[in-house]
Protein backbone atom coordinates (compact mmCIF):
# COMPACT_ATOMS: atom_id res chain seq x y z
CA UNK A 1 0.00 0.00 0.00
CA UNK A 2 2.63 2.45 0.98
CA UNK A 3 4.42 1.87 -2.26
CA UNK A 4 1.37 3.06 -4.10
CA UNK A 5 1.42 6.18 -1.97
CA UNK A 6 5.11 6.58 -2.64
CA UNK A 7 4.66 6.29 -6.38
CA UNK A 8 1.72 8.64 -6.57
CA UNK A 9 3.38 11.25 -4.40
CA UNK A 10 6.44 11.14 -6.57
CA UNK A 11 4.30 11.72 -9.64
CA UNK A 12 2.40 14.54 -7.96
CA UNK A 13 5.56 16.27 -6.92
CA UNK A 14 6.97 15.93 -10.40
CA UNK A 15 3.89 17.67 -11.72
CA UNK A 16 4.42 20.53 -9.29
CA UNK A 17 7.96 20.90 -10.49
CA UNK A 18 6.86 20.90 -14.09
CA UNK A 19 4.31 23.62 -13.44
CA UNK A 20 7.07 26.19 -13.25
CA UNK A 21 8.41 25.57 -16.71
CA UNK A 22 4.89 25.22 -17.90
CA UNK A 23 4.14 28.71 -16.61
CA UNK A 24 7.24 30.19 -18.23
CA UNK A 25 6.29 28.54 -21.45
CA UNK A 26 2.74 29.85 -21.22
CA UNK A 27 3.88 33.37 -20.49
CA UNK A 28 6.24 33.40 -23.45
CA UNK A 29 3.66 31.93 -25.78
CA UNK A 30 0.81 34.16 -24.73
CA UNK A 31 2.70 37.39 -24.71
CA UNK A 32 4.36 36.69 -28.02
CA UNK A 33 1.15 35.57 -29.66
CA UNK A 34 -0.77 38.57 -28.43
CA UNK A 35 1.92 40.92 -29.56
CA UNK A 36 2.45 39.26 -32.92
CA UNK A 37 -0.33 41.16 -34.58
CA UNK A 38 1.23 44.47 -33.61
CA UNK A 39 4.64 43.40 -34.89
CA UNK A 40 3.16 42.32 -38.18
CA UNK A 41 0.79 45.20 -38.80
CA UNK A 42 2.85 48.04 -37.40
CA UNK A 43 6.23 46.69 -38.30
CA UNK A 44 9.17 46.26 -35.97
CA UNK A 45 10.97 49.42 -37.01
CA UNK A 46 7.95 51.71 -36.81
CA UNK A 47 7.03 50.26 -33.45
CA UNK A 48 10.46 50.58 -31.91
CA UNK A 49 11.50 53.86 -33.48
CA UNK A 50 8.20 55.68 -33.67
CA UNK A 51 8.09 58.73 -31.45
CA UNK A 52 4.35 59.12 -31.48
CA UNK A 53 2.01 56.99 -29.44
CA UNK A 54 -1.54 57.92 -30.22
CA UNK A 55 -3.81 54.89 -30.21
CA UNK A 56 -6.78 56.92 -31.24
CA UNK A 57 -5.06 57.71 -34.51
CA UNK A 58 -3.57 54.26 -34.94
CA UNK A 59 -0.07 55.50 -34.19
CA UNK A 60 2.01 53.13 -32.11
CA UNK A 61 5.59 54.18 -31.61
CA UNK A 62 7.24 53.23 -28.35
CA UNK A 63 10.58 54.90 -28.74
CA UNK A 64 9.70 57.40 -26.04
CA UNK A 65 8.97 54.59 -23.62
CA UNK A 66 12.15 52.70 -24.43
CA UNK A 67 14.21 55.84 -23.89
CA UNK A 68 12.24 56.60 -20.74
CA UNK A 69 12.82 53.18 -19.21
CA UNK A 70 16.48 53.08 -20.14
CA UNK A 71 17.17 56.62 -19.03
CA UNK A 72 15.47 56.36 -15.66
CA UNK A 73 17.23 53.07 -15.02
CA UNK A 74 20.63 54.53 -15.89
CA UNK A 75 20.03 57.44 -13.54
CA UNK A 76 18.78 55.19 -10.75
CA UNK A 77 21.87 53.04 -11.16
CA UNK A 78 24.05 56.14 -11.07
CA UNK A 79 22.60 57.24 -7.73
CA UNK A 80 21.94 53.82 -6.29
CA UNK A 81 24.92 51.60 -7.12
CA UNK A 82 27.70 53.65 -5.45
CA UNK A 83 25.59 54.09 -2.33
CA UNK A 84 24.62 50.43 -2.26
CA UNK A 85 28.16 49.17 -2.71
CA UNK A 86 29.47 51.49 -0.06
CA UNK A 87 26.73 50.26 2.22
CA UNK A 88 27.64 46.67 1.45
CA UNK A 89 31.33 47.22 2.17
CA UNK A 90 30.39 49.09 5.30
CA UNK A 91 28.21 46.26 6.58
CA UNK A 92 30.63 43.51 5.65
CA UNK A 93 33.94 44.99 6.72
CA UNK A 94 33.71 48.18 8.69
CA UNK A 95 30.62 48.26 10.86
CA UNK A 96 30.98 47.01 14.43
CA UNK A 97 28.59 44.21 15.34
CA UNK A 98 26.06 46.39 17.11
CA UNK A 99 25.88 48.85 14.23
CA UNK A 100 25.39 46.02 11.79
CA UNK A 101 22.54 44.67 13.87
CA UNK A 102 20.77 47.97 13.32
CA UNK A 103 21.66 48.77 9.74
CA UNK A 104 21.14 45.37 8.16
CA UNK A 105 17.54 44.95 9.38
CA UNK A 106 16.92 48.53 8.31
CA UNK A 107 18.04 47.68 4.80
CA UNK A 108 15.91 44.55 4.79
CA UNK A 109 12.93 46.56 5.89
CA UNK A 110 13.51 49.00 3.05
CA UNK A 111 13.18 46.03 0.72
CA UNK A 112 9.80 45.08 2.09
CA UNK A 113 8.07 48.44 1.84
CA UNK A 114 5.47 48.33 -0.92
CA UNK A 115 6.40 50.17 -4.08
CA UNK A 116 3.25 52.28 -3.97
CA UNK A 117 4.33 53.67 -0.62
CA UNK A 118 7.58 54.83 -2.18
CA UNK A 119 5.56 56.23 -5.06
CA UNK A 120 3.32 58.07 -2.66
CA UNK A 121 6.26 59.50 -0.77
CA UNK A 122 7.75 60.56 -4.06
CA UNK A 123 4.55 62.27 -5.11
CA UNK A 124 3.98 64.11 -1.88
CA UNK A 125 7.50 65.01 -0.83
CA UNK A 126 9.98 64.60 -3.65
CA UNK A 127 8.02 66.04 -6.57
CA UNK A 128 7.25 69.37 -4.87
CA UNK A 129 10.93 69.60 -3.90
CA UNK A 130 12.09 69.03 -7.44
CA UNK A 131 9.51 71.46 -8.72
CA UNK A 132 11.35 74.18 -6.84
CA UNK A 133 14.20 74.01 -9.33
CA UNK A 134 13.66 77.17 -11.36
CA UNK A 135 13.49 75.83 -14.86
CA UNK A 136 10.53 76.65 -17.05
CA UNK A 137 8.43 73.61 -17.80
CA UNK A 138 9.57 71.80 -14.71
CA UNK A 139 6.56 70.14 -13.11
CA UNK A 140 8.49 68.18 -10.52
CA UNK A 141 7.33 64.97 -12.16
CA UNK A 142 9.96 63.47 -14.33
CA UNK A 143 13.18 61.53 -14.60
CA UNK A 144 14.88 63.09 -11.58
CA UNK A 145 12.14 62.32 -9.07
CA UNK A 146 11.55 58.90 -10.56
CA UNK A 147 15.22 57.93 -10.59
CA UNK A 148 15.67 58.94 -6.97
CA UNK A 149 12.68 56.87 -5.92
CA UNK A 150 13.95 53.97 -8.01
CA UNK A 151 17.43 54.25 -6.52
CA UNK A 152 15.98 53.92 -3.04
CA UNK A 153 14.01 50.90 -4.16
CA UNK A 154 16.95 49.01 -5.65
CA UNK A 155 19.32 49.89 -2.82
CA UNK A 156 18.35 47.03 -0.52
CA UNK A 157 18.54 44.48 -3.33
CA UNK A 158 22.05 45.43 -4.35
CA UNK A 159 23.31 46.00 -0.82
CA UNK A 160 22.15 42.65 0.52
CA UNK A 161 23.53 40.54 -2.28
CA UNK A 162 26.78 42.48 -2.55
CA UNK A 163 27.28 42.22 1.19
CA UNK A 164 26.82 38.46 1.06
CA UNK A 165 29.32 38.27 -1.77
CA UNK A 166 31.88 40.25 0.20
CA UNK A 167 31.40 38.17 3.31
CA UNK A 168 31.87 35.03 1.27
CA UNK A 169 35.44 35.95 0.37
CA UNK A 170 37.69 33.48 2.24
CA UNK A 171 39.36 34.81 5.36
CA UNK A 172 42.72 33.57 4.14
CA UNK A 173 42.88 36.26 1.51
CA UNK A 174 42.24 38.97 4.04
CA UNK A 175 44.77 37.55 6.50
CA UNK A 176 47.33 37.07 3.78
CA UNK A 177 47.03 40.69 2.74
CA UNK A 178 47.12 42.13 6.26
CA UNK A 179 50.18 40.01 7.08
CA UNK A 180 52.04 41.90 4.34
CA UNK A 181 51.62 45.17 6.16
CA UNK A 182 48.67 46.68 4.32
CA UNK A 183 45.90 48.71 5.86
CA UNK A 184 42.38 47.35 6.14
CA UNK A 185 41.21 49.62 3.36
CA UNK A 186 44.04 48.50 1.08
CA UNK A 187 43.04 44.93 1.77
CA UNK A 188 39.44 45.67 0.89
CA UNK A 189 40.33 47.34 -2.38
CA UNK A 190 43.25 45.11 -3.34
CA UNK A 191 41.98 41.66 -2.48
CA UNK A 192 38.47 41.45 -1.08
CA UNK A 193 36.55 43.43 -3.68
CA UNK A 194 38.30 41.82 -6.66
CA UNK A 195 37.59 38.40 -5.17
CA UNK A 196 33.91 39.30 -4.68
CA UNK A 197 33.60 40.77 -8.11
CA UNK A 198 31.24 38.23 -9.66
CA UNK A 199 28.87 38.41 -6.72
CA UNK A 200 28.87 42.18 -6.81
CA UNK A 201 28.16 42.25 -10.52
CA UNK A 202 25.31 39.80 -9.99
CA UNK A 203 23.92 42.13 -7.34
CA UNK A 204 24.03 45.09 -9.70
CA UNK A 205 22.39 43.14 -12.52
CA UNK A 206 19.60 42.19 -10.17
CA UNK A 207 19.20 45.80 -9.24
CA UNK A 208 19.06 46.86 -12.87
CA UNK A 209 16.45 44.19 -13.59
CA UNK A 210 14.39 45.41 -10.68
CA UNK A 211 14.66 48.97 -11.91
CA UNK A 212 13.57 48.10 -15.43
CA UNK A 213 10.61 46.15 -14.09
CA UNK A 214 9.22 48.67 -11.63
CA UNK A 215 5.77 49.90 -12.59
CA UNK A 216 3.47 51.57 -10.08
CA UNK A 217 5.99 53.80 -8.36
CA UNK A 218 7.14 55.00 -11.76
CA UNK A 219 3.65 55.85 -12.91
CA UNK A 220 3.22 57.94 -9.79
CA UNK A 221 6.23 60.18 -10.20
CA UNK A 222 7.50 60.14 -13.73
CA UNK A 223 4.73 62.12 -15.38
CA UNK A 224 3.68 59.63 -18.00
CA UNK A 225 3.65 61.99 -20.93
CA UNK A 226 4.66 60.23 -24.08
CA UNK A 227 7.66 62.28 -25.02
CA UNK A 228 11.25 61.38 -25.70
CA UNK A 229 13.07 63.13 -22.85
CA UNK A 230 14.90 66.28 -23.86
CA UNK A 231 16.45 69.19 -21.97
CA UNK A 232 13.98 71.78 -20.82
CA UNK A 233 16.39 74.68 -21.16
CA UNK A 234 19.78 75.46 -22.59
CA UNK A 235 21.57 73.54 -19.85
CA UNK A 236 21.71 69.92 -21.04
CA UNK A 237 21.43 68.68 -17.46
CA UNK A 238 17.82 69.81 -17.37
CA UNK A 239 16.98 66.71 -19.34
CA UNK A 240 16.51 65.02 -15.99
CA UNK A 241 13.62 67.34 -15.31
CA UNK A 242 11.80 66.15 -18.39
CA UNK A 243 8.75 63.99 -17.96
CA UNK A 244 8.75 60.53 -19.44
CA UNK A 245 6.91 57.26 -19.61
CA UNK A 246 8.35 53.83 -18.98
CA UNK A 247 7.59 50.63 -20.88
CA UNK A 248 6.07 49.25 -17.70
CA UNK A 249 3.97 52.33 -17.20
CA UNK A 250 2.74 52.11 -20.74
CA UNK A 251 1.48 48.62 -20.18
CA UNK A 252 -0.23 49.27 -16.88
CA UNK A 253 -1.88 52.52 -17.80
CA UNK A 254 -3.44 51.40 -21.05
CA UNK A 255 -4.17 47.69 -20.89
CA UNK A 256 -7.51 47.87 -19.16
CA UNK A 257 -9.31 49.62 -21.98
CA UNK A 258 -7.24 48.65 -24.97
CA UNK A 259 -8.69 46.51 -27.73
CA UNK A 260 -7.64 45.18 -31.06
CA UNK A 261 -4.42 46.53 -32.47
CA UNK A 262 -4.00 48.80 -29.46
CA UNK A 263 -4.12 45.83 -27.15
CA UNK A 264 -1.68 43.97 -29.31
CA UNK A 265 0.67 46.92 -29.22
CA UNK A 266 0.60 46.79 -25.43
CA UNK A 267 1.63 43.16 -25.51
CA UNK A 268 4.34 44.08 -27.94
CA UNK A 269 5.55 46.58 -25.36
CA UNK A 270 5.69 43.69 -22.92
CA UNK A 271 7.78 41.66 -25.33
CA UNK A 272 10.18 44.56 -25.81
CA UNK A 273 10.52 44.89 -22.04
CA UNK A 274 11.18 41.19 -21.71
CA UNK A 275 13.82 41.27 -24.42
CA UNK A 276 15.45 44.32 -22.85
CA UNK A 277 15.81 42.57 -19.52
CA UNK A 278 17.23 39.45 -21.12
CA UNK A 279 19.70 41.54 -23.11
CA UNK A 280 20.88 43.34 -19.98
CA UNK A 281 21.30 40.05 -18.13
CA UNK A 282 23.24 38.44 -20.97
CA UNK A 283 25.41 41.51 -21.50
CA UNK A 284 26.40 41.54 -17.87
CA UNK A 285 27.11 37.83 -17.87
CA UNK A 286 29.28 38.28 -20.95
CA UNK A 287 31.16 41.08 -19.26
CA UNK A 288 31.88 38.87 -16.29
CA UNK A 289 33.16 36.00 -18.36
CA UNK A 290 35.39 38.24 -20.42
CA UNK A 291 37.13 39.66 -17.42
CA UNK A 292 37.74 36.38 -15.66
CA UNK A 293 41.51 35.97 -15.58
Amino acid sequence: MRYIVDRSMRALLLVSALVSIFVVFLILVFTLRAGLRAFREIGLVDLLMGRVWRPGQEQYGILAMIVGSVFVTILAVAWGVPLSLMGAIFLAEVAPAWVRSVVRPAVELLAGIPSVVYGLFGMVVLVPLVRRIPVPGNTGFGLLSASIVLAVMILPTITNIAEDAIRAVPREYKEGSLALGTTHWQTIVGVILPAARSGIVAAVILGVGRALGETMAMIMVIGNSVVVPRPLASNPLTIVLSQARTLTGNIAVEIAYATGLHESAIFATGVVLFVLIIVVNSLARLLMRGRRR
Partner: protein
Amino acid sequence: MQDAGWRIEHRDRTFVLTTSNLAWRHFAQRVAFALLWLAGIMAVAVLVVVVAYVVLQGVKVINPEFLLTPPRGGLSGEGGISTTVVTTLYLVLLTISIAAPLGVGAAIYLVEYAGQMQGQGRLAYLVGVVRFGVELLAGVPSIIFGLFGYALFVTAMHLGFSLLSAALAGACLLLPVVIRASEEALRAVPRSFREGSLALGTTQWQTVWGVVVPAALPGIITSVVLSVGRVISETAVFYVTLGGSYNLPRSILSGGRSMALHLYYLAMDTRAFEKAMGTGAILIVVIVLINLVINFLSHRLAARLGGA
Protein backbone atom coordinates in the same frame (compact mmCIF):
# COMPACT_ATOMS: atom_id res chain seq x y z
CA MET B 1 63.22 49.94 -0.30
CA GLN B 2 66.55 49.54 1.39
CA ASP B 3 67.68 46.57 3.37
CA ALA B 4 70.24 48.56 5.33
CA GLY B 5 68.66 48.32 8.77
CA TRP B 6 66.23 50.89 10.00
CA ARG B 7 66.28 53.61 12.52
CA ILE B 8 63.96 54.34 15.36
CA GLU B 9 62.86 57.88 14.76
CA HIS B 10 60.98 58.81 17.89
CA ARG B 11 59.95 57.17 21.08
CA ASP B 12 56.30 57.74 20.29
CA ARG B 13 54.42 55.63 17.82
CA THR B 14 56.02 54.60 14.61
CA PHE B 15 59.13 53.15 13.10
CA VAL B 16 59.73 55.32 10.12
CA LEU B 17 61.37 53.89 7.06
CA THR B 18 62.47 55.87 4.10
CA THR B 19 60.07 55.78 1.13
CA SER B 20 57.26 54.73 3.42
CA ASN B 21 53.85 55.95 2.38
CA LEU B 22 52.42 54.91 5.70
CA ALA B 23 50.97 58.28 6.63
CA TRP B 24 49.19 58.57 3.31
CA ARG B 25 47.75 55.05 3.60
CA HIS B 26 46.35 55.73 7.04
CA PHE B 27 44.87 58.98 5.82
CA ALA B 28 43.29 57.31 2.80
CA GLN B 29 41.71 54.73 5.06
CA ARG B 30 40.32 57.38 7.32
CA VAL B 31 38.68 59.18 4.44
CA ALA B 32 37.35 55.98 2.89
CA PHE B 33 35.92 54.70 6.15
CA ALA B 34 34.29 58.06 6.87
CA LEU B 35 32.49 57.83 3.54
CA LEU B 36 31.48 54.25 4.25
CA TRP B 37 30.05 55.24 7.59
CA LEU B 38 28.15 57.98 5.81
CA ALA B 39 26.66 55.46 3.42
CA GLY B 40 25.57 53.23 6.27
CA ILE B 41 23.98 56.12 8.09
CA MET B 42 22.24 57.29 4.95
CA ALA B 43 20.66 53.92 4.41
CA VAL B 44 19.14 54.05 7.86
CA ALA B 45 18.24 57.71 7.44
CA VAL B 46 16.31 57.05 4.24
CA LEU B 47 14.32 54.34 5.94
CA VAL B 48 13.59 56.50 8.92
CA VAL B 49 12.56 59.47 6.83
CA VAL B 50 10.21 57.54 4.57
CA VAL B 51 8.65 55.45 7.30
CA ALA B 52 8.37 58.31 9.76
CA TYR B 53 6.79 60.62 7.23
CA VAL B 54 4.22 58.12 6.03
CA VAL B 55 3.37 56.91 9.50
CA LEU B 56 3.16 60.35 11.05
CA GLN B 57 1.00 61.65 8.24
CA GLY B 58 -1.09 58.52 8.14
CA VAL B 59 -1.78 58.26 11.83
CA LYS B 60 -3.83 61.43 11.55
CA VAL B 61 -6.57 59.62 9.72
CA ILE B 62 -6.40 56.24 11.37
CA ASN B 63 -9.28 55.63 13.72
CA PRO B 64 -11.85 52.86 14.13
CA GLU B 65 -14.08 54.54 11.58
CA PHE B 66 -11.30 54.51 9.01
CA LEU B 67 -10.74 50.85 9.53
CA LEU B 68 -14.31 49.77 9.69
CA THR B 69 -16.14 51.72 7.03
CA PRO B 70 -15.86 50.99 3.34
CA PRO B 71 -14.60 53.51 0.80
CA ARG B 72 -17.25 55.55 -0.89
CA GLY B 73 -15.30 56.97 -3.76
CA GLY B 74 -15.51 60.54 -4.87
CA LEU B 75 -12.84 63.08 -5.55
CA SER B 76 -11.94 63.52 -1.91
CA GLY B 77 -11.79 59.80 -1.21
CA GLU B 78 -14.67 59.43 1.18
CA GLY B 79 -14.90 56.60 3.61
CA GLY B 80 -12.45 54.15 5.09
CA ILE B 81 -10.65 51.06 3.94
CA SER B 82 -12.58 48.17 5.44
CA THR B 83 -13.36 46.38 2.21
CA THR B 84 -9.81 46.69 1.02
CA VAL B 85 -8.54 45.02 4.15
CA VAL B 86 -10.87 42.11 3.62
CA THR B 87 -10.01 41.90 -0.06
CA THR B 88 -6.33 41.83 0.82
CA LEU B 89 -6.99 38.99 3.22
CA TYR B 90 -8.91 37.00 0.66
CA LEU B 91 -6.22 37.62 -1.90
CA VAL B 92 -3.48 36.45 0.40
CA LEU B 93 -5.31 33.29 1.35
CA LEU B 94 -6.23 32.40 -2.20
CA THR B 95 -2.83 33.13 -3.69
CA ILE B 96 -0.92 31.26 -1.01
CA SER B 97 -3.20 28.26 -1.23
CA ILE B 98 -2.28 28.00 -4.90
CA ALA B 99 1.38 28.95 -4.72
CA ALA B 100 2.43 27.15 -1.56
CA PRO B 101 1.53 23.58 -2.41
CA LEU B 102 2.88 23.93 -5.93
CA GLY B 103 6.05 25.67 -4.84
CA VAL B 104 6.82 23.48 -1.87
CA GLY B 105 5.96 20.39 -3.89
CA ALA B 106 8.30 21.44 -6.66
CA ALA B 107 11.04 22.14 -4.13
CA ILE B 108 10.58 18.75 -2.52
CA TYR B 109 10.80 17.08 -5.88
CA LEU B 110 13.91 19.00 -6.90
CA VAL B 111 15.73 18.30 -3.67
CA GLU B 112 14.57 14.86 -2.66
CA TYR B 113 13.79 13.02 -5.84
CA ALA B 114 15.60 14.68 -8.68
CA GLY B 115 18.89 14.47 -6.84
CA GLN B 116 18.99 10.74 -7.31
CA MET B 117 18.49 10.93 -11.03
CA GLN B 118 22.11 11.72 -11.74
CA GLY B 119 22.62 8.72 -13.94
CA GLN B 120 19.30 8.67 -15.72
CA GLY B 121 19.96 11.20 -18.43
CA ARG B 122 16.49 12.11 -19.51
CA LEU B 123 15.17 12.97 -16.12
CA ALA B 124 18.29 14.84 -15.17
CA TYR B 125 17.86 16.91 -18.29
CA LEU B 126 14.32 17.66 -17.23
CA VAL B 127 15.50 18.86 -13.84
CA GLY B 128 17.95 21.19 -15.50
CA VAL B 129 15.14 22.63 -17.56
CA VAL B 130 12.98 23.12 -14.49
CA ARG B 131 15.81 24.92 -12.72
CA PHE B 132 16.31 27.14 -15.72
CA GLY B 133 12.59 27.84 -15.82
CA VAL B 134 12.53 28.87 -12.19
CA GLU B 135 15.46 31.19 -12.70
CA LEU B 136 13.85 32.77 -15.73
CA LEU B 137 10.60 33.20 -13.88
CA ALA B 138 12.37 34.95 -11.05
CA GLY B 139 13.58 37.66 -13.39
CA VAL B 140 10.23 38.47 -14.96
CA PRO B 141 8.84 41.80 -13.79
CA SER B 142 5.55 41.91 -11.95
CA ILE B 143 3.67 43.76 -14.68
CA ILE B 144 4.39 41.01 -17.18
CA PHE B 145 2.73 38.56 -14.84
CA GLY B 146 -0.16 40.97 -14.76
CA LEU B 147 -0.28 41.17 -18.52
CA PHE B 148 -0.12 37.41 -18.78
CA GLY B 149 -2.82 37.06 -16.15
CA TYR B 150 -4.96 39.52 -18.06
CA ALA B 151 -4.50 37.63 -21.29
CA LEU B 152 -5.03 34.13 -19.92
CA PHE B 153 -7.17 34.29 -16.84
CA VAL B 154 -9.15 37.48 -17.25
CA THR B 155 -9.77 37.22 -20.97
CA ALA B 156 -9.14 33.78 -22.43
CA MET B 157 -10.52 31.81 -19.51
CA HIS B 158 -13.27 34.35 -19.00
CA LEU B 159 -12.63 34.67 -15.32
CA GLY B 160 -12.81 38.43 -15.61
CA PHE B 161 -11.34 40.87 -13.14
CA SER B 162 -11.57 38.71 -10.08
CA LEU B 163 -9.87 37.37 -7.00
CA LEU B 164 -9.28 34.14 -8.86
CA SER B 165 -7.55 35.75 -11.82
CA ALA B 166 -5.44 37.84 -9.49
CA ALA B 167 -4.56 34.90 -7.27
CA LEU B 168 -3.54 32.76 -10.22
CA ALA B 169 -1.37 35.51 -11.66
CA GLY B 170 0.07 36.23 -8.24
CA ALA B 171 0.82 32.57 -7.68
CA CYS B 172 2.89 32.52 -10.87
CA LEU B 173 4.81 35.49 -9.53
CA LEU B 174 5.40 33.82 -6.18
CA LEU B 175 6.39 30.41 -7.49
CA PRO B 176 10.15 31.12 -7.80
CA VAL B 177 10.20 32.75 -4.37
CA VAL B 178 8.58 29.82 -2.66
CA ILE B 179 10.61 27.25 -4.57
CA ARG B 180 13.94 28.88 -3.82
CA ALA B 181 13.32 29.44 -0.13
CA SER B 182 11.85 25.97 0.36
CA GLU B 183 14.72 24.38 -1.53
CA GLU B 184 17.16 26.07 0.80
CA ALA B 185 15.27 24.86 3.83
CA LEU B 186 15.17 21.30 2.53
CA ARG B 187 18.82 21.24 1.59
CA ALA B 188 19.74 22.40 5.06
CA VAL B 189 18.36 19.22 6.54
CA PRO B 190 21.36 16.97 7.29
CA ARG B 191 21.73 13.91 5.16
CA SER B 192 21.88 11.76 8.29
CA PHE B 193 18.18 12.37 8.88
CA ARG B 194 17.25 10.84 5.59
CA GLU B 195 19.67 7.99 5.83
CA GLY B 196 18.52 7.16 9.33
CA SER B 197 14.94 6.92 8.22
CA LEU B 198 15.60 4.94 5.06
CA ALA B 199 17.74 2.51 7.02
CA LEU B 200 14.62 1.62 8.96
CA GLY B 201 12.98 0.39 5.77
CA THR B 202 10.64 3.28 5.01
CA THR B 203 9.72 4.39 1.52
CA GLN B 204 11.12 7.61 0.26
CA TRP B 205 7.84 9.42 0.59
CA GLN B 206 7.53 8.31 4.20
CA THR B 207 10.99 9.66 4.86
CA VAL B 208 10.25 12.94 3.18
CA TRP B 209 6.93 13.47 4.83
CA GLY B 210 7.85 12.06 8.21
CA VAL B 211 11.37 13.34 8.71
CA VAL B 212 12.66 15.81 6.16
CA VAL B 213 9.71 18.15 5.85
CA PRO B 214 9.19 18.49 9.60
CA ALA B 215 12.85 19.30 9.99
CA ALA B 216 12.68 21.91 7.25
CA LEU B 217 9.39 23.29 8.46
CA PRO B 218 10.61 26.59 9.91
CA GLY B 219 12.32 27.36 6.64
CA ILE B 220 9.30 26.39 4.60
CA ILE B 221 7.05 28.46 6.81
CA THR B 222 9.46 31.33 6.37
CA SER B 223 9.07 31.07 2.64
CA VAL B 224 5.29 31.16 3.01
CA VAL B 225 5.44 34.18 5.29
CA LEU B 226 7.73 35.86 2.80
CA SER B 227 5.13 35.24 0.13
CA VAL B 228 2.42 36.74 2.29
CA GLY B 229 4.53 39.86 2.52
CA ARG B 230 4.95 39.89 -1.24
CA VAL B 231 1.24 39.56 -1.90
CA ILE B 232 0.49 42.43 0.45
CA SER B 233 3.08 44.72 -1.13
CA GLU B 234 2.56 43.79 -4.75
CA THR B 235 0.55 46.06 -6.96
CA ALA B 236 1.33 45.82 -10.65
CA VAL B 237 0.30 42.20 -11.09
CA PHE B 238 -2.98 42.77 -9.27
CA TYR B 239 -3.66 46.11 -10.87
CA VAL B 240 -4.49 44.52 -14.18
CA THR B 241 -6.21 41.41 -12.86
CA LEU B 242 -8.20 42.46 -9.84
CA GLY B 243 -10.16 45.36 -11.21
CA GLY B 244 -10.68 48.58 -9.34
CA SER B 245 -13.93 48.13 -7.49
CA TYR B 246 -13.85 49.16 -3.86
CA ASN B 247 -16.73 46.95 -2.92
CA LEU B 248 -16.53 43.78 -0.95
CA PRO B 249 -15.95 40.78 -3.19
CA ARG B 250 -18.83 38.33 -3.01
CA SER B 251 -17.07 35.32 -4.43
CA ILE B 252 -13.73 34.44 -5.87
CA LEU B 253 -15.05 35.58 -9.20
CA SER B 254 -15.65 39.13 -7.99
CA GLY B 255 -13.08 41.82 -8.27
CA GLY B 256 -11.92 44.20 -5.60
CA ARG B 257 -9.08 46.33 -4.31
CA SER B 258 -6.20 45.32 -2.14
CA MET B 259 -4.90 47.91 0.31
CA ALA B 260 -1.87 48.63 -1.80
CA LEU B 261 -4.06 49.20 -4.85
CA HIS B 262 -6.41 51.39 -2.83
CA LEU B 263 -3.43 53.53 -1.89
CA TYR B 264 -2.59 53.87 -5.56
CA TYR B 265 -6.10 54.86 -6.54
CA LEU B 266 -6.34 57.33 -3.71
CA ALA B 267 -3.08 58.92 -4.76
CA MET B 268 -3.84 59.07 -8.46
CA ASP B 269 -7.58 59.67 -8.63
CA THR B 270 -8.35 61.73 -5.55
CA ARG B 271 -6.86 64.46 -3.46
CA ALA B 272 -7.08 62.37 -0.29
CA PHE B 273 -3.34 62.06 0.23
CA GLU B 274 -3.74 61.72 3.96
CA LYS B 275 -5.94 58.70 3.58
CA ALA B 276 -3.38 57.27 1.21
CA MET B 277 -0.77 57.88 3.88
CA GLY B 278 -3.02 56.17 6.40
CA THR B 279 -3.30 53.12 4.20
CA GLY B 280 0.44 53.22 3.69
CA ALA B 281 1.08 53.43 7.41
CA ILE B 282 -0.98 50.32 8.00
CA LEU B 283 0.83 48.53 5.21
CA ILE B 284 4.19 49.44 6.72
CA VAL B 285 3.15 48.19 10.14
CA VAL B 286 2.03 44.90 8.64
CA ILE B 287 5.30 44.50 6.74
CA VAL B 288 7.32 45.24 9.86
CA LEU B 289 5.39 42.58 11.75
CA ILE B 290 5.95 40.10 8.96
CA ASN B 291 9.67 40.88 8.95
CA LEU B 292 9.81 40.28 12.68
CA VAL B 293 8.08 36.95 12.25
CA ILE B 294 10.54 35.96 9.54
CA ASN B 295 13.51 36.92 11.70
CA PHE B 296 12.12 34.96 14.59
CA LEU B 297 11.57 31.93 12.39
CA SER B 298 15.07 32.17 10.95
CA HIS B 299 16.56 32.13 14.41
CA ARG B 300 14.47 29.14 15.37
CA LEU B 301 15.65 27.39 12.23
CA ALA B 302 19.27 28.08 13.04
CA ALA B 303 18.86 26.99 16.63
CA ARG B 304 17.06 23.83 15.71
CA LEU B 305 19.65 22.66 13.23
CA GLY B 306 22.50 23.81 15.42
CA GLY B 307 21.22 21.87 18.39
CA ALA B 308 20.31 18.80 16.36
